[in-house]
């Protein structure tokens, strides 16, 4: 039995070795090579000493942060309201449905909506502001990226809110806390795991949305993803591309550590509670 079980596990472990571990090692190795495949640390030196690369990285982080904040502000109330509705499954499917529409099609829709003679500019003219250059600006990039990420923020928060024992906020209300206090001190801290999962699901992809920077941002916004894509597929400088990739991976691990840390603590707290009980 044990052997047969392990036999069925073989593809999974092969997958881990070939597609999880090996690619990470390869990209690390590639970042230490030059065009001829010789070992070098020049890529990292170039990255560290070039204001272009550093500024681009900070910019990318800043945009990802803004996208995360915007989606969080929109999504938390939406998830909360959603968790109070009848026919939740149906509403949830309506939230999920847009994620099943190809991302490129949604980006393409915004090219139409934001264009100089598009619907948004018609609306702006109608309310008397007059047409603006919306497409190919950082603003449009932020809007479209947030739009695309909203469902990915709503779902984990919704899950956390649904799992919250309704007795806890009720108890808080019964004990005289105001709705705002209940939310701030009970509901929000207890659903923080969902928020963190959402942040993880939004922030990291936001660092790499190169297709949006090209289609919507008009190359005015350059994220880490855009830089990697350019180095790999346009200038064919895989070494430098991998170096930026390694930096992106490091950022990813930092964010994962920041967002996973609390969960562990919570588990410890739960264990403590169990032992005291």
């Amino acid at each position, binding site marked *: 039995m044990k052997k047969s079980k392990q036999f069925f596990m073989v593809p999974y472990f092969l997958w881990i070795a070939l597609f*999880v571990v090996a690619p*990470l090692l390869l990209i690390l190795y590639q970042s230490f090579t030059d065009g001829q495949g010789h070992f070098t640390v020049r890529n990292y030196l170039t990255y560290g000493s070039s204001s272009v690369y550093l500024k681009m990285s900070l910019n990318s982080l800043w945009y990802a942060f803004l996208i995360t904040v915007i989606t969080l502000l929109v999504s938390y109330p939406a998830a909360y309201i959603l968790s*109070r509705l009848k026919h939740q499954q149906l509403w949830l499917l309506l939230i999920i*449905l*847009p994620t*099943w*529409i190809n991302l490129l*099609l949604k980006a393409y829709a915004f090219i139409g909506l934001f264009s100089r003679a598009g619907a948004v500019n018609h609306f702006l003219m109608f309310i008397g502001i007059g047409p603006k250059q919306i497409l190919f600006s950082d603003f449009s990039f932020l809007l479209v990226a947030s739009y695309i990420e909203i469902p990915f923020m709503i779902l984990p928060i919704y899950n956390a809110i649904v799992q919250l024992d309704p007795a806890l906020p009720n108890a808080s209300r019964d004990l005289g806390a105001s709705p705002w206090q209940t939310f701030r001190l009970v509901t929000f801290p207890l659903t923080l795991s969902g928020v963190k999962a959402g942040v993880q699901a939004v922030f990291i992809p936001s660092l790499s949305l190169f297709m949006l920077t090209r289609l919507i941002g008009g190359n005015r916004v350059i994220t880490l*993803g855009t830089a990697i894509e350019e180095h790999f597929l346009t200038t064919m400088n895989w070494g430098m591309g991998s170096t930026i990739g390694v930096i992106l991976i490091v950022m990813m691990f930092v964010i994962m550590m920041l967002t996973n840390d609390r969960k562990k603590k919570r588990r410890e707290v739960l264990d403590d509670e169990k032992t005291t009980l």
Partner: protein
Amino acid sequence: MKKPRFSSLYLIFVFIILYTPIFYLIFYSFNAGGNMNHFTGFTWEHYQTLFSDQRILVIVLDTLLIALLSSLVATIVGTFGALGIAGHKKAATRSTLLTLNNVLMVSPDVIIGASFLILFTSLGIGLGFGSVLVSHIAFSIPIVVLMVLPKVNELDPALLNAAQDLGASKAQTFWRVIIPYITPGILSGFFMAFTYSLDDFAVTFFVTGNGFTTLSVEIYSRARQGISLEINALSAVMFIFALLLVVGYYFVNQYSRSRRQRQKRHAQAEVTLR
């Protein structure tokens, strides 16, 4: 009752935001004017162009084939992976495996794409259908594991012991007890993998090479050239397809839930009859 009204207004607002771009695309797919700004008249012309466009039709079939094959393989590998992770006795091993599993879930698409491109070139594998399929399998496996794992963890060991006490073989326990119990997880894993594959652009863009194209990549290259209402027509078709999938998924869920409830009720009725 002022509050609920405000909250439902907010939710409606969010839904309007979510659906405006999609319906905007679909609306202008019927525009005779040829752009997305002024609706000059109704026409089916763009749909006719779409359905007579051999290139697009081949790409659609390829994309669906990749999605179906990759999600099938990923579901099988991922289900066994989830069973294997849950079967490990040591908590440390379990969490290490889970961390490794989640690497591709949290990795940005560009990293997956770029590192797979290095992998394929260093192994000497040519880019095309095969590399895209393998990549899609690879990035779909972790989501299947994450969908199946909670179900496996919910599985009561008493259930397995009972099955074995009643004389079921290992294989029977597996097929008759474990698999039916975790099937909802497997199904949602499959659906997620399927949509991941359909929706993927970045990874495919890196590993697709010159000869082979999926729908996302094709839309990207066409969108870079500007507006073409054929894409709008395509988006309408894809929206209806996604809608059918979602509705189908909803009813499968409802059906299995109501069947479970019915079984529960039957069981209760039998108990009370006795």
